[in-house]
Structure formats: C-alpha cells, structure tokens
C-alpha cells in the first residue's frame, strides 16, 4: 500500500470561506434508489440523493428513520451486520461502492466515519492515531509523528495533549475524545467524512467546539452529517435532506440547498418538521 502523504500537502491553497455557500455544487456521491433491509424489516427505501463535493450536507429526521443505516451503506459497514441487505446503487467519484469486487479497506480509508458516542481505542492517544496509519502502510517514525501532530492540530487538540501523548485516550474528556476520533479519521487523509450525530453525546461547550471544527473542515472534505439539532443544521449545512418514517420504512422526503429546505420547504412534512411542529 502506498504511504500516506501528510494532510498538509493535500490541503487546497485557498480554504473556502466559511459562508454556507462555499463552493458550487459538484456531485461527489450519487445514491440511486438505495434500500436497506435488516432481515424482514426495512430500514429505509428508495433513497435517491446526490451529495456535493466539499460541502456539508445535513441529514435530519426523527429517530428510527434510517439515518444511521444510510451512513453505514456509504462505507459498507453494513457488511458487518449478517442479516443486512442493501440494494440500489452508490457511486462515489467513479467507484461503484456496492459492487462485490470493491476493495472495502480502500473505500473505508477514503471515507472516514465519526460515531455518536466517541469511541477511541483503549490505547494511548498516540497509539490511537498511529495504529491505523501503520496498518495502512506508514512505518517511518518521523513521518508518523508528523502525521499525528498534523491531525491533532487539525482538530485543535495538539496544545491540549502534546505533553501526554502516551497517556490513555479514555482519560480524555468526552469532547476531547470525539475530536481525537475525528483526528484519527483525518490522519488517513479521507476525501469524505460521515458523521453520525457527532455532538449529541457531548456537553454544550464541547459540542460547540466540535461544531466549529466541522465548519473549519468544510471545503477540504465532503461532509455528510446526521444531526438532531435543527439549529445546528441551519448554522452549518450547505445542503440538507429530510428522512421520515413512512409505512414502517424510512424515506427521503426532500433534499436540496439548506436555505431552501429551512426557509422555503416544498413538502408540507418538511415545513412541519423544520418549524418544530412535528418530529
């Protein structure tokens, strides 16, 4: 496997400004009539959605409408669930994600995932970052420590932990752990980040810090974020998509630019949801 070049070298020269309208929509992920079943039970059905490069797309909707399940299709974590059946098409860049011959290890390296509950490994802070990097072929000590420092700086954790890189990651606070998990994903230089309610298990201050971090990552990464916090979605998202449970299965109700979804929704359900009347 080719060694990973440090993130800094891949960073665009001009970071896009933080205005929600950050770059022209340019499709990166194409989801076509995607459905997912857990055994007999349908999690979501017939979702067709396009996700633009470098932008933040927020996935909103009530609990149980299949948002998490949708994310896990994109990096094929669904492979880990025995009775899980996915049908439809997902194209990322030019890669056919669901094709059996797709190299899932490479796919998952291109698409990082952040979970609702921070889940660092029970290793030291350094080892949490070093372990996946080594696994993907980076062995050189200096390159490793550069990559680790860059990733920790990217998430604003470097100054907080640089003196205790060898202490257990689980001793960090929840917010720090979540940022460490983001750093761990960033260290592999992914192109896209899937974030499943990354702030919902954190206290308001940590949540704010992580939210600011996500905004800073805009442009460098294509971000698909599930959030229950509509105010947060309004603040950070360029695009938004609303899922809803319909006849026992999740459906995509409406998708489009965040401004339009929140201010001028076409669908009455969306209007009710974003105004806080339902959901």
């Amino acid at each position, binding site marked *: 496997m080719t060694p990973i070049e440090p993130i800094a070298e891949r960073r665009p020269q001009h970071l896009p400004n933080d205005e929600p309208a950050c770059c022209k929509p340019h499709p990166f992920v194409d989801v076509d009539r995607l459905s997912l079943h857990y055994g007999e039970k349908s999690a979501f059905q017939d979702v067709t959605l396009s996700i633009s490069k470098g932008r933040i797309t927020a996935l909103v909707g009530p609990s149980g409408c299949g948002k998490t399940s949708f994310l896990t299709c994109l990096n094929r974590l669904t492979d880990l669930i025995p009775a899980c059946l996915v049908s439809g098409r997902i194209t990322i860049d030019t890669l056919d994600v669901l094709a059996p011959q797709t190299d899932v290890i490479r*796919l998952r390296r291109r698409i*990082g*995932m952040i979970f609702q509950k921070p889940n660092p*490994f029970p290793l030291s802070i350094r080892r949490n970052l070093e372990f996946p990097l080594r*696994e*993907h072929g980076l062995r050189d000590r200096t390159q490793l420590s550069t990559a680790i420092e860059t990733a920790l700086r990217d998430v604003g954790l470097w100054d907080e932990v640089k003196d205790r890189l060898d202490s257990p990651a689980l001793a960090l606070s929840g917010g720090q752990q979540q940022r460490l998990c983001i750093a761990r994903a960033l260290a592999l230089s992914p192109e896209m980040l899937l974030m499943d309610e990354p702030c919902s298990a954190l206290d308001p201050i940590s949540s704010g810090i992580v939210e600011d971090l996500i905004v800073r990552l805009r442009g460098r990464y294509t971000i698909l974020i599930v959030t229950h916090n509509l105010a947060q979605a309004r603040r950070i998202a360029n695009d938004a998509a609303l899922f809803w449970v319909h006849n026992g299965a999740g459906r995509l109700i409406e998708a489009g630019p965040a401004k339009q979804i929140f201010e001028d929704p076409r669908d009455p359900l969306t209007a009710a949801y974003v105004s806080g009347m339902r959901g």
Partner: protein
Amino acid sequence: MVKTLSRSQNPREWLAFVLVWGAAAVVTATFCWLLGDILWHGLSRLSWTFLTAPPESAGRRGGIGPILVSTFLILGVCLAVSLPIGVGTAVLLAEFTLDQGLFGRMTRRSLDVLAGVPSIVFGLFGNAFFCKTLGLGFSILSGGLTLACMVLPILIRSTEEGFRAVPASYRLSAAALGLSRTTTLLHLLLPAAVPGLIVGLVLGVGRAIAETAALIFTSGYVDRMPESLLDSGRALSIHIFDLSMNVSGGDANAYGSALVLVVLLLLINGTASWLATVGLHRKIVTV
C-alpha cells in the same frame, strides 16, 4: 450498616442478615480451618530438601522432587495444547459464527455438557484413547492431553465471554478506519479479551493441578524422576492421595505435599491477577 441492624428492627430483615452473614462466616471459617490444619501439620515438613529430594520408602520419607517435576510437565503439556486450541475456538465462536446459528449453538451446548462431566470419565476416556488407541501408554503426555480435554471447555467458554464483553463499537470503529479483520482481532479484540482468558486459565489450571481421578489412569503412579514425556510420572495430587490412603505412616509427608499444592494454587491465582492488571495496563499505555 452492620451496626444499625439490630433485633429491634424488622425481624425478617434481621433473620436475612443473620443467614447471609452466617453463610459467609461458615465458608470463611471452613477455608481457614482447612488452611490452618494443612499449615499446622505441613509447615514442619517444608524444606528445600523436601522440595528436591526423591521420595523414599513409598513416600514416607524423602521429598517430592520428581513428583513436582512430573506435575509441572503434565501441566505444561496441558497448557501447550489447550491454550492455542482454546483461544482459537473462542475466536471462532465469538467472532466468526452467528449467535443463533446451528454450528455455534451445537458447539456451545457440547462444551457446556463437557464442562460438567466428572473427571473420572475424562480419565477413562484418556486411558482408552491416548494410552491405548494412540499407544502413548501411561505417560506424562497422556496425562497432559487428558487434562487438556478436561480444561478446554472452561477455557473456551470463558475466553469466548471475554471476546463478547468487548464493546461492539471497537469492531465498528476499527472497520470504519479500514482495519482488516485480522488486525482488529490481534491488536484490539485479543488484548481486550485477556481478562476472560485469564479467568479461564485460573479455573482451568486450578482444576488441572489438583486433578487426581483423570490422571490415575493416564499418567500413572511411578514416582521416579521422568526422563521424557513418554515416561509415567506421578502428579502431586496423586501423591497426596496415595500417601494418605495407601501408605501407613505417610500422613506427615501427605500434609507437606498438600501444603505445597495449596501454595502453588495460591501462587497461580496471584500471578494471574497480577498479570491481568499489570499486563493490561502496560498494553493500554504503551503498545
């Protein structure tokens, strides 16, 4: 808490209190009495010569040198065989079979039945299979293999529980980082499953080192120093049994041997829990 409960309170609560503490006291007292008895009679026998010298006059005099060596050899064979098979099977059961699948269910059920089979049955099986069918005769190898069969069910089940106790989030986050299943298993799941493995080992080794019935028919009685694994060798527990049941005037040395056995058991327990805490801590901090 203890002092606030008095007779004046609800009598049923008082009764429960007495029963619970009474039971605990009986258990502790029995253990102390047993230990005290062994210490009282055995301590005077204990010396370096006793630990190294060969037994004389059927064990009445002399020491337990060859018997200790045989015991460790039997235990070594048992561990060398049961550890890899045990961990392998536990990994298979916990990580590669469906919880509700037929294969997993059947294997688990069989193991649970095997774990409850009396050791004498294992002894007879070992005699028939290892000694006769495989032609290993009465030997340390036969004894060790028989013990391995006996401790495997315990070892597998508790290691499997160790793997199951690892949070699912480790597997998900490892997979999401593009780590292969083998790497995840070796570097994340295995270290996290070590406590379960250690519990299984302590239970298994404890059972093995104190085993008599399974060894009488397999590793035999011979109290000479074994020269190879194919020699017969007498285990410590058999020596104690023999001295106290078949040899008149062997009681003093029986007590001495029993004391050694108890100390060994305590040492194994202590080392295991020390390994579990220190080893795991090191794993977490530096690896």
